């Protein structure tokens, strides 16, 4: 049973793989070492896979190799083809399939146990770990699927709440515990399958009430869940590498989730269950018809070209419109005129913490022009113009002024302190959090409507012409 403790080279190679994973996570924490860290992690994974194939004394080898090849091609092609803007969805999907795989492995292990001569005498703790793997793997699978649907806008990104939701959630949780107890006392396959189904329901119910802007935190949390699932699976199968790797991801994923939540000024509990308390009833998403001031690219070009200090606040809309290349050109042109320009990057700009850095790196924006929120927030007072491109929630003063708003408490960029604010927007539609932005109606604010890419190139040629 405990293959990890048998002789031979395999346990030693698994240890090497585990060290690779530790160093991979360590490397990924710093920009200089990140890429090598990731490659080292991939090396560890390949090493472990080859080890099990060579050492495992396995049947059905041809079918196994074909299945690995199919998974490899699907994963690699998906990873190569995906647009950088769709990164969060892809991570959610990869996480979901990993959780699903762990749940299936545990179900098969349960099937093996029920086939033993005396399944009732199987160690209870192993059975509990099997039940845990089935349950949490299923939660991770269906939760990630809902996350994917929200990010891909296959469904509304608003919190989905219905009256019986807390009861349904609580009921499913009790059912899950009851089924786990059944499996622990007397392992039966029907209980395992029922537990899997309850887990799928729980995952959906867990993610439905989470608002669009908070979804990335949930991906990170589900990522940690999958890690713990894999760890429990390692215990069940007697494989030390699975236990160590899964625990590493579970622990670091939990910490990462808390760091991200902190960057948004929220607690994880508040993100998951905040909507259930009925707190965020604001943000009906209606478009108000209050007057706003708008202008054309030529007017904005003059404003920008005669400023001394400009701060750009890029958002997800910029990347969706693929306007980041034109934006970089605009910043270069303004720089040539002697204007000091910086990008203010909110920690959760884009759809996932750190996402905006990836998107701007894609457009080859120099790293040193990207300023983190804490470094630049004091400088907005001196800025002549703040150009907000495709961002909304991260400059919404409601985060400071409106208790009960879905984003209340999130630290924001102090764009409202600048002398003049220019919003480039497609429409008056609210941001991902679904709430109206008071700053749009500020007397200092001018709106420049249109598709970001189109408007940006008009703005660019207008500035060049001056």
């Amino acid at each position, binding site marked *: 049973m*405990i293959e990890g403790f048998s002789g031979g080279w395999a346990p030693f190679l698994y240890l090497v793989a585990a060290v690779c*994973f*530790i160093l991979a*996570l*360590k490397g*990924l*924490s*710093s920009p200089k070492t*990140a890429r090598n*860290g*990731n*490659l080292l*992690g991939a090396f560890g994974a390949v090493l*472990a*896979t080859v080890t099990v194939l060579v050492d*495992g004394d396995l*049947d059905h080898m041809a079918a*196994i190799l074909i*299945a690995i090849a199919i998974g*490899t091609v699907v*994963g*690699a092609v*998906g*990873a190569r083809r995906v647009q950088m803007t769709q990164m969060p969805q*892809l991570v959610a999907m*990869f*996480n979901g399939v*990993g959780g699903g*795989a762990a749940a299936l*492995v545990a179900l*098969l292990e349960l099937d*093996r146990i029920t086939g033993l001569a005396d399944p009732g005498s199987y160690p209870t703790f192993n059975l509990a770990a099997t039940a845990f793997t089935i349950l949490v793997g299923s939660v991770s699978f269906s939760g990630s699927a809902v996350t994917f649907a929200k990010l891909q806008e296959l469904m509304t990104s608003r919190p989905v709440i219905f009256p019986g939701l807390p009861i349904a959630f609580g009921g499913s949780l009790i059912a899950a515990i009851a089924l786990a107890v059944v499996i622990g006392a007397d392992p039966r396959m029907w209980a395992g399958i029922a537990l899997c189904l309850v887990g799928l329901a729980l995952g959906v119910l867990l993610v439905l009430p989470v608002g669009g802007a908070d979804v990335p935190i949930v991906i990170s949390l589900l*990522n940690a869940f*999958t*890690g713990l*699932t*894999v*760890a429990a*699976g390692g215990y069940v*199968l007697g494989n*030390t590498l*699975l*236990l160590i*790797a*899964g*625990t*590493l*991801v579970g*622990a*670091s994923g939990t*910490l990462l989730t808390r760091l991200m939540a902190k960057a948004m000024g929220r607690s994880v509990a508040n993100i998951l269950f905040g909507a259930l308390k009925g707190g965020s009833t604001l943000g009906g998403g209606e478009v108000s018809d209050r007057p706003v001031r708008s202008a054309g690219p030529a007017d904005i070009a003059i404003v920008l070209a005669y400023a001394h200090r400009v701060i750009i606040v890029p958002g997800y809309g910029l990347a969706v419109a693929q306007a980041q290349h034109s934006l970089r050109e605009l910043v270069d042109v303004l720089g040539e005129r002697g204007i000091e320009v910086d990008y203010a990057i909110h*920690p959760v700009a884009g759809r*996932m*913490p*750190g996402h905006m850095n*990836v998107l*701007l*790196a894609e457009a*080859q*924006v120099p790293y040193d022009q990207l300023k983190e929120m804490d470094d630049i927030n004091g400088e907005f007072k001196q800025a002549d113009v703040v150009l907000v491109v495709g961002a909304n929630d991260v400059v919404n003063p409601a985060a400071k002024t409106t208790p009960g708003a879905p984003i209340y408490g999130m630290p924001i960029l102090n764009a409202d302190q600048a002398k003049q604010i220019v919003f480039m927007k497609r429409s008056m539609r609210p941001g991902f959090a679904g709430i109206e932005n008071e700053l749009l109606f500020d007397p200092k604010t001018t709106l420049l409507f249109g598709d970001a890419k189109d408007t940006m190139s008009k703005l660019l040629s207008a500035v060049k012409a001056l």
Partner: protein
Amino acid sequence: MSPENIVWLTFFVLSVFVGIEVISKVSSTLHTPLMSGANAIHGIILIGAITVTGTTESTPVVIVGLIAIVLAAVNMVGGFVVTDRMLEMFSGGRKKEPRE
């Protein structure tokens, strides 16, 4: 608790501390690649799926096991490749390679 379980518990507790320690100083710039890289690591459930599939006689188990292998391989390979693609851009930003 059996001596064997004490060993497992030791692995678990030490791994928790290592997992927290190694990423405690991550900059927010790298949150996305780190999440994606950690995501790839749990794709290692692949070796569990391979073991289960390769040590059974039952055809239904093999079929489900092969599905698990495909899913786990998607997780592992896709995760590492997409993380590398993101990190490639971070380093590429400085070099200003010619584009278009």
